[in-house]
């Protein structure tokens, strides 16, 4: 029985890393898509600028997948090995927490900034660069969380 607790925890860690940021990204990108369609109903030429803003909070989902891969790869699960102790499994679970939670939360916050950016770009088309940068400021913390997860995962001895 104890022999499967380790692998289960690792799978849980990997799943959390994908599920939470993925959920955040999907929800926010969906909301921004609706707003963008509304704006485009007035002015279809805005598509390019709006698309970039919509895509920005989508990166958290990608970082989540990246976290999943690092966990699965480093634990050897991707290669089919399941020989992990419960302690190791727990460490993987803890290491996945930064990207799981900050990925989720930063997607929401970045979405809010991107939403404001869409309003800005609609009024002043030439400010799209500034709107993008304002939204990207939030993403920094998702990146830092991803780094914490990656470095944390790599430091676990397998």
């Amino acid at each position, binding site marked *: 029985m104890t022999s499967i607790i380790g692998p289960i925890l690792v799978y849980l860690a990997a799943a959390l890393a994908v599920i939470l940021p993925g959920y955040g990204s999907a929800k926010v990108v969906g909301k921004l898509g609706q707003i963008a369609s509304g704006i485009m109903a007035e002015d279809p030429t805005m598509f390019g600028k709006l698309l*970039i803003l919509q*895509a*920005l909070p*989508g*990166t958290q989902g*990608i*970082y989540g*997948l*990246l976290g999943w*891969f*690092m966990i699965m790869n480093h634990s050897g699960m991707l290669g089919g090995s399941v020989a992990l102790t419960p302690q190791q499994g727990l460490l993987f679970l803890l290491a996945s927490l930064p990207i799981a939670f900050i990925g989720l939360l930063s997607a929401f916050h970045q979405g809010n900034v991107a939403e404001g950016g869409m309003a800005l770009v609609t009024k002043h088309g030439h400010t*799209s*660069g*500034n709107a*993008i*940068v304002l939204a*990207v*400021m939030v993403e*920094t913390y998702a*990146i*830092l969380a*991803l*780094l914490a997860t*990656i*470095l944390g995962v*790599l430091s676990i001895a397998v």
Partner: protein
Amino acid sequence: MAKMTILGAREDQDEVLDSLMRSGAVEIVKNNELDDERKVSTVTIDNVDLRVRLSRTIAVMQRRFPEAKRLSIQKLPVKEKDFLFTDKEENELRALVSRFEGHLEQEEAIAAKLSRLEQQIEQLLPWQDIPVDLSQHETARTKLIYGIFMDALSFESFESDLRRDYPLATSFFLEEEGLFPAKVAVVSLDEQLAGVRARLSSYDFHEIPKLPFSGTAKATILSIQREIEEEQENKQKLDQELEAMADECGRLMTYHDYLLVRSDHRLAGEEIHELDYTFFLQVWVPKTQASDMGRELSERFDIAWISEDPKEGEETPVKLENNKIFRPFEVILEMYGAPSSHEVDPMPVMAPFYMILFGMMLSDVGYGAMLMLGTAYMLFGRKVEGNTRQMSMMLFISGISSVIWGFIFGGFFGDMLTAVTMGKVNFPALWFNPMDSPVQLLLFSMVFGVIHLFFGLGLHIRNEKMQGNLIGGLADSVTWYLIIPGLGLMLSAGAIAEQPSTVELLKQVGQWLVIGGAAFGLIFAGHGIKNPFKRLIKGLGALYGITSYLSDILSYARILALVLATSVIATVVNMLGMLVGPSFIGYIVFALIGAFGHTLNLALSALSAFVHTSRLQYVELFGKFFVGGGSFWNPLSRRTKYIRIEDDTSSN
């Protein structure tokens, strides 16, 4: 930039403005006081209105007729002498636009009518074998209702209702009996019609719609079909006439741009100060061109001019001048905003670092090559112009950089070679593979970030020097030039050298660098402040800036995250592709999944690389020196949308 003041006679005003527009070398000094009270004249509104109609007409022509579409691929070359319209020609073109719009409206009406007729046929089709005049709804004393009973049960219940309540009414099958849905004619006395209808409506019965025809369904269908044919002929005729009008598309495009230039001309004219017999206006001219421009104008017109340097502290328009490789990257700066005219052009630092950082983030030979192919098509195939051209050129150059970094980090569509050959062949990395040693890349990213920031500080020194505050600039920069490498040495001495004595020495060097830097900051940060106490406080405040440096440097860790994101997703795509295994079908599956997955990954990763490289420039680099607040050089010129004006002489 020099400020040129031109004074001339009123009758020359338009022509002087026209030749300034042609030169494309001056920007009018805006008269800000006018802005509030400026009213939009009806002439301007008419001009805009006509231009909108023209663009719409041109768009329709180019969408529908290949002859006109060909004109849209590139800007249409137009001779100078053809870029002029007499009143008669203008009226003709306006009439043409109106006729075109009228034709489009007619066409729409015909299309609506056609779809209505086709709908009617659709409704009549099931009835075409019934040899009864369906428009015959009454006789002298009875009314007739035609329709369809969907099932036997409703029909039978209806029949029994009739027998009970209205024995004089009856119903007939119009086709073979017993087949449902069944077409039925219901006959009732005039005065009972309402009651029978009420019964009918409670069953699954669909009455045939009333049609504006008489005769059997078959005859009606035939007559509708004839009408459709007629309308289609009309439509074809309209289409031919529209196509004939589209021959004038080039002329319309020229006219649109002519109106655009005229509108700009009028707007520029509003900035001119008009007196009773003379006018004067002020323009910014690049210093080197000022005297030539003045001489040329005074030869042709009766004008007086002077050119003077801008006053101390006065903002002038910012005209960036960079070589061919750096110029495309100006788009990035334009997205951020213009630098002040009192600071150095950041492009010489920004452009090369943009190339390098973008290349690192999208470090993949395959993706870089795809990006190059895509942008090369935009540049040389479609020959895009303006901002899109600059953007494509910038991405093309960044694509080259991605290919180079792809070789350095050993990425070709992720690990495609390894995946396809089941591990027999590996794409070699010239330096190291970030997937194997991410920590190494993390450190390298930060070291690279420090270099990037130091270049930014270099620009800061130059800016301060231009302002005559060299010592202040040095105080802000040299402190960090010493402290950051010093801290780096202290932290990483163990990793750089192996022998304990060397490690100790490196640590010592680092320590002294830090102390030296801190001392420099403490002494010089408050340069110019007399009170020693205040000066010390200022120095301490400057040293507190270390926190911002730490966060700036950490920010470069995103390079590692993005490198890994690109290659990990590529790896996942390859892994999914090879699930079927190395067989013939397996490779087909791989090609399909690969084509889809890698294109998607390229789009996402290139977007990320673009966005995050921009951010590193805007926030981290610009934060070190950028003043901003200027406005970009926006010379008065003949702005065109569809055409390119050619000199009469050059093309002969």
